[in-house]
């Protein structure tokens, strides 16, 4: 009889720069066998433990919502004025991370580890499929007691009630049903029109689903070797700013690039870049390029050049303003 391997608990992070995510994954790998229970990184916000950037509005809303719903999930803020609260700040120190994970294990004692829903398609993919299904006039979105719908092709979003950041956080962390409605579902469409009349900006929600609900996978319709471009910039003033997204957008609006090529030029792991591309695809700003799929570039072919005089000036301006580093 073989000994049963304990199931790993899952940890994720929200509101940090992508480097924090990569660092957390790498540090976890180094800690194998050093914690009370095995742990693994997850892209899903339903993980057992969530490390969050204290000033991130969406993360704050998730914490509030989780507390209200008594999910039992354990949250570690990046900072706290209360010295008794365990915090986890990037760069994550190994001993601090072990302390947090062991503390979480005690808090989660008796609870079955949250399961990875790897076999099911991501919300991002389901929504993308619904938006692109032939003949779709609208997509119904249901999450808990929230009912909404997206009218196509305008992508106008309506909800049954005005949604604040807490409700949006709920949408992003919980179960969401999406359904494409075509010409034969006229009655259902009319019911939606009557029930959900509060307009809301669609771009913010679609973007957030692409970033947070992709399960780290590029949408199947996107190909890492096929060049693509952005037909316009997403409105980062409305949907929130992450420097890596701005960096990728500046490259993809100036030239069509294959995702593999873009990842190399931007110096960003393909897994992280995938969420950005998915978000662009959902928002409708990503379009195929005209060039043929390219062979993966040789690693040295597009390595970042030596810092030029201009490069040094831009870097120093960023340092002075504390942006995009």
């Amino acid at each position, binding site marked *: 009889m073989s000994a049963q391997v304990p199931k790993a608990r899952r940890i994720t992070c929200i509101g940090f720069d992508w480097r924090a995510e990569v660092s957390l994954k790498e540090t976890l790998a180094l800690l194998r066998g050093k914690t009370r229970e095995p742990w693994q990184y997850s892209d899903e916000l339903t993980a057992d433990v969530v490390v969050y950037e204290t000033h991130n509005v969406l993360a704050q809303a998730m914490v509030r919502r989780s507390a209200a719903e008594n999910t039992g999930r354990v949250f570690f803020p990046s900072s706290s004025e209360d010295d008794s609260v365990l915090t986890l700040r990037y760069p994550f120190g190994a001993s601090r991370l072990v302390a947090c994970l062991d503390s979480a294990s005690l808090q989660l004692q008796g609870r079955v580890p949250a399961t990875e829903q790897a076999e099911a398609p991501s919300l991002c993919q389901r929504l993308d499929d619904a938006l692109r299904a032939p003949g779709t006039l609208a997509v119904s979105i249901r999450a808990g007691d929230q009912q909404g719908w997206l009218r196509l092709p305008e992508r106008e979003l309506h909800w049954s009630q005005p949604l604040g950041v807490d409700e949006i956080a709920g949408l992003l962390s919980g179960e969401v049903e999406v359904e494409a409605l075509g010409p034969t579902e006229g009655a259902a469409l009319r019911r939606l029109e009557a029930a959900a009349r509060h307009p809301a900006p669609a771009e913010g929600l679609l973007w957030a689903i692409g970033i947070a609900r992709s399960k780290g996978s590029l949408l199947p319709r996107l190909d890492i070797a096929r060049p693509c471009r952005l037909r316009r*910039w997403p409105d980062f003033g409305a949907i929130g700013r992450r420097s890596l997204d*701005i960096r990728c957008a*500046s490259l993809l609006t*100036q030239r069509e690039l294959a995702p593999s090529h873009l990842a190399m030029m931007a110096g960003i792991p393909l897994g992280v870049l995938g969420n950005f591309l998915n978000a662009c695809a959902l928002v409708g700003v990503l379009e195929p390029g005209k060039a043929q799929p390219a062979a993966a570039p040789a690693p040295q072919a597009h390595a970042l050049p030596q810092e030029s005089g201009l490069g040094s000036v831009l870097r120093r301006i*960023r*340092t*002075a303003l504390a942006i*995009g580093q």
Partner: protein
Amino acid sequence: MREYKLLFAGPMGAGKTTAIAAISDAAPVRTEAVNSDRVQHSKELTTVGFDYGEIALDGGDRLRLYGMPGQDRFDFMWKVASEGALGVVLLSDNSRPEPLKDLALYVESFRAMAERGAMVIGIGRLGSGHTSVESYTAWLAGQGLSLPVFTVDVRRRDDVLLLLDALLYQIEAARLLADTPHA
């Protein structure tokens, strides 16, 4: 000590002075006078020369921030100031009657920077007007330009930093792509 400059341009009342104040190391030098052009904007004071702010960089260099006077009778100053500038932040006031006409004037005046991607556009008071963000991007596309266009409130420092973050990446991307052959 080396000096570099960034420009802030846009019509009267779009928030150039406010944006510079949000990021300048010291309170900006303002050259304001009583607004004699109440048809353009109802504010009491307006910039008649440059607004000026600065940011200290590592190594003792300085980044100078210039706010261009908004009235188009000063357009000769815009051209002089744009010589040697790293880029320009264009601020639009969407509550004005014809914001796209305003945009056209400034894009044309700073065309060289727009064509090399060294321009970013911040739209203020979006909800007070009828011109959508898509209308701005469509107008730019018609000009053969694909520039960052964001809704902003320049009273918030984070929004001003968003504009600068995008502008710096635009400049960096143009440089990187110029050194990279097409696939």
